Structures are given as structure tokens and as C-alpha cells.
């Protein structure tokens, strides 16, 4: 039986309890995650930082019910990850956008309406056109992915993940392949979208500055085996704008993050 998905606002978005994940690969066993315990309140924006191979992607995959945990329990919106996935409460943005190349931008955003059992948009939630406008792509509805720049493709992927108004948005290094200017702009826009939609966001990144600028809290993972190294709160004046990264306060907190990261 799938557990019920609790109504909004009265339980944490994510509760990780001693979650461990192992992979068996050619005679070796890799412990991707070990004893992860974590609580993410609804509506927060958590960034995840850590060296390569420390299990950041695996953590998102466990939340999205792509990989089952071997030990411990993962609660998503008070229920199982599977229940949250089937209720379409989870949006996932992959590193390489993962757009279907034969579909136009608009049809890519529409994909969630066509698979997994046809379901109408929840009342009051934004439609595909509105979401494309939200990510700044009004006028590009009919473009095919190969006609879009990397940044624009990533915007389409974000719009697709937001369709249906999921309460949790998982982002796996979504801007990792982009140039710095595009990345900065998308960072600011993501904050705007977050404030506009109230979605809980878990955002994986390799960049200390991105982690500090976006995150209200930064989860630092250590590698081999992947475990929680620290949960670092980031205190910055709201609303956050790009110039805040030039301030001494931001620099100090970023330097602290770097110091924590170096102990991983």
C-alpha cells in the first residue's frame, strides 16, 4: 500500500532517517550513502555540496524513488517516496536537461501530462505556456531543443519539472555545464521562481558560490562512504541578489564552507 500524501504545510518535506545505499559493481560493493539523517522543512531551499562521488546524485535519486535505500527510511511529504512520485509531487531537473530532441520546447514541457496516466493539471497551477513564460522563454514554444542554447534548454527542463506544481523540486547540477554569466542569471531566476512557487528545492552543485548564494542551508557530504559532514546555515540579507556575493559577509561564509569542504 502506498502511504497517503499529507496536505501541504503540516509536515517536513523530507525526513531522512539513517538512510544507506549500496551498489554492487563487479565484485566490489560501493557504499554511496551511509547513515544519512536529515530533515528538510517544507518550502526551504537546501543546497548539497561535496566532492565528486560522495553520493549527491544518489541522495536525489532516493528521494525521487529511482533508487531504493538499503537501510533506514526516507519519508517524502510524510509518505513513501513512491507515493510522492505517483502523486507527482516531485519534479526532477537533470544535469543535461534530458529534453526529448524531437519535441518542441512546449511539447517537452507538456510531456508530464501525456505519460504516467493522463491527469489534468491541478486547479490553479500554471499551464505549459505560462511556465515557459515563467522561465523567460515566451516566444520559443515551437523551437526544437537543438535550436536552443544550453541555458535555454535548462530553462525548458525547469519548466517541465514545475508542471503540475510539484511540492518538491530536485535539481542535480542543473547549471553545471553552463557558462558563468548564464549560470548567474539562472541562479537569480531560480530564487525568483522559488519565491513565486513556494516549492521545496534540493539543489546539488559543485560550486561553493552557487551553494552559498542559493542555499538557506548547505548540506556538505563527505565521500567514501557518502555521509553528512555538516549542515551549514547561510545567513544573508533577503531578498538575495547577485551583488551580495561581493560583500564581505558572503565571502566569509563561502570561506567557511570551503574550509568545511576541505575536511571531506
Amino acid at each position: 500500500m502506498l502511504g497517503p500524501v499529507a496536505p501541504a504545510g503540516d509536515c517536513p518535506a523530507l525526513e531522512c532517517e539513517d538512510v544507506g545505499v549500496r551498489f554492487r559493481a563487479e565484485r566490489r560493493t560501493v557504499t554511496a550513502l551511509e547513515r544519512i539523517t536529515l530533515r528538510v522543512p517544507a518550502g526551504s531551499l537546501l543546497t548539497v555540496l561535496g566532492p565528486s562521488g560522495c553520493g549527491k546524485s544518489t541522495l536525489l535519486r532516493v528521494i525521487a524513488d529511482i533508487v531504493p535505500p538499503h537501510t533506514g527510511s526516507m519519508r517524502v511529504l510524510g509518505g513513501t517516496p513512491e507515493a510522492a512520485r505517483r502523486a507527482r509531487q516531485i519534479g526532477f531537473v537533470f544535469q543535461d536537461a534530458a529534453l526529448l530532441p524531437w519535441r518542441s520546447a512546449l511539447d517537452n514541457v507538456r510531456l508530464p501530462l501525456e505519460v504516467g496516466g493522463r491527469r489534468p493539471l491541478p486547479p490553479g497551477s500554471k499551464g505549459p505556456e505560462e511556465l515557459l513564460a515563467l522561465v523567460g522563454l515566451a516566444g520559443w514554444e515551437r523551437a526544437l531543443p537543438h535550436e536552443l542554447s544550453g541555458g535555454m534548454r535548462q530553462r525548458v527542463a525547469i519548466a517541465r519539472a514545475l508542471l503540475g506544481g510539484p511540492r518538491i523540486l530536485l535539481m542535480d547540477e542543473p547549471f553545471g555545464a553552463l557558462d558563468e554569466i548564464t549560470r548567474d542569471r539562472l541562479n537569480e531566476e531560480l530564487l525568483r521562481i522559488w519565491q513565486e512557487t513556494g516549492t521545496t528545492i534540493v539543489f546539488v552543485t559543485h560550486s561553493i558560490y552557487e551553494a552559498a548564494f542559493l542555499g538557506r542551508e548547505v548540506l556538505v557530504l563527505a565521500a567514501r562512504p557518502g555521509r553528512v559532514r555538516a549542515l551549514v546555515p547561510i545567513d544573508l540579507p533577503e531578498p538575495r541578489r547577485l551583488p551580495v556575493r561581493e560583500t564581505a559577509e558572503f565571502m566569509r561564509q563561502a570561506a567557511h564552507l570551503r574550509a568545511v569542504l576541505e575536511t571531506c
Partner: protein
Amino acid sequence: MPTMQAAAPVTAEPQADPADRAERAALIRERARRILLPIAGGLSLLFVWWALVALLHVKPFIAPSPEVVAHTLYDRFGMLMANLLPTAIEAVGGFIIGNFGAVLLATLFVHRRTVELAFFPVAVLINSIPVVAKAPILLLLLGNGLAPKVAIAAIICFFPTLVNMVRGLQAVSPQAMELMHVLSASKREVFFKLRLQSSLPFLFSALKIAASTATVGAIVGEWIGSQVGIGALIVQATYNFDSALLYATVLCGSAFSVLFFLVIRLIERLVVRWDAGVAA
């Protein structure tokens, strides 16, 4: 409210400034070179052929001169076309049947790994038998007439398409599969919304090869015990030392094969619009 907006797409034609015009002229020149140079190359080879036959006094039954071949093409056009028709029917029929079967089997292989493990090696083995060796077996099995030639053409097309299609159906990016999982898509939806489309570039590269191999299969099928068709005509012309007819027949067969290929490529360009390599 969206605060930032990506630049709107350019809808109006840009003003033709001199640099733009120069670029367009260069593009046209390049395109002309690509058409004219191959024609010039072909003509020069024709000339070499003609000169060699004339200067070395090659006997007409060994190799004809180009103008004799042209004459034969013109004079016996009706007869040549009458023989091309059955070959074309066999090739196209075999192409359709063989490729259709290959796509169906590839679909089964992708969904039933046991079947793939059991039959894929057998398919590889059968395919490794040369066409000339397979043809007599099939002729014995299927008897004379149209059927064995269609079967040979079909079998020739079948394997490359099967291999490419299996690869194409499996060539889905892992992230796209994870996306479908997150969207709780059924297997059927994954097949129709994802696998089928991503296999199309693979399928078409197999179909383009199949267009010429199906023709080869039909012709080889006509080599043994057949009265009509390009293959039969080739055999007859060779035995009669009618080199002009032989060359004219081969030309007709190749022209058909090229035409077949071009039709498939045209369909590919209409269908596979997203693949930058194809669309370009």
C-alpha cells in the same frame, strides 16, 4: 512576473548588408562547386573510358565504348524497363517485408531479454552466410517465381536493420529513462514516447543501406533460373558476349538502386528533423 526575458526569436529577415551578401554569394559558390565538380569528374572518366576503348581498339564484346552503351540504352529502353520492373518489385517488396520483420523482432528483443539471448546469435550466424550461397537454398525451398527473390531481398535487409534497431531502441539516455520513471510512465509509454523516436536515426541509417542491398539481393536471386529481371538480363548478356547490353543493364540496375536510396533519404529528412547531423 518574469523579470528577465531571453531575447525574442528573430522573425523579420535581417537587412541585407554587404557582408551578409558576400557570405550568401560564397555559400552559392560552394553549393555550385558541390554540384558541378562531381559532374565534371564523371564526364572526365567517361572521356577516359571512351579514349581507352578507341585508342586500344578494344573488341566490342570485351568492353563497349560509352556511345554504344548510350545507343543500346536508347534503342532497347522498353525492354530494359520491362526487366527492371520485376527486379524493382522484388527489391521493394523484400525491403518492406525484411525491414518490417526486423523492426518487429527488435521490439521483441528489447522487451524480452530471453528471446534476444536465444535468437540473436542464430540471426548473426544466418546473416554471415554469403548471399550467393543462400540464394540456391532459398530457390530450392521457395521454388521459381517472384517469391524466392523477394525472400532473398528481405533476408538481406533483415539483419542490418535488426542490429541497428536493437541498438537504436536501447540507445535511450539513462537520464531520459530516469525522467520517465519519475513521471511514473508505463513501459508502453516509454516505448512509444521515447524508444521509438530515439531509434529512428539508427533505423534510417540501416534503411539507407538496405535500399541498395535489397536491390543486390533481388538481382542475385534472378541469376539462377529466371527468365526476366535485371539479374537474368545480366546473365544472358554475359553469355551472349553482348557487352553493350550488359553495361546498359547494369546502369539501369544502379540507377534504380540510387533512386531507391534517395527516396529513403528524402523520407529520413522529412521524419528525423531533430537530428542536427541529418537535418543539416
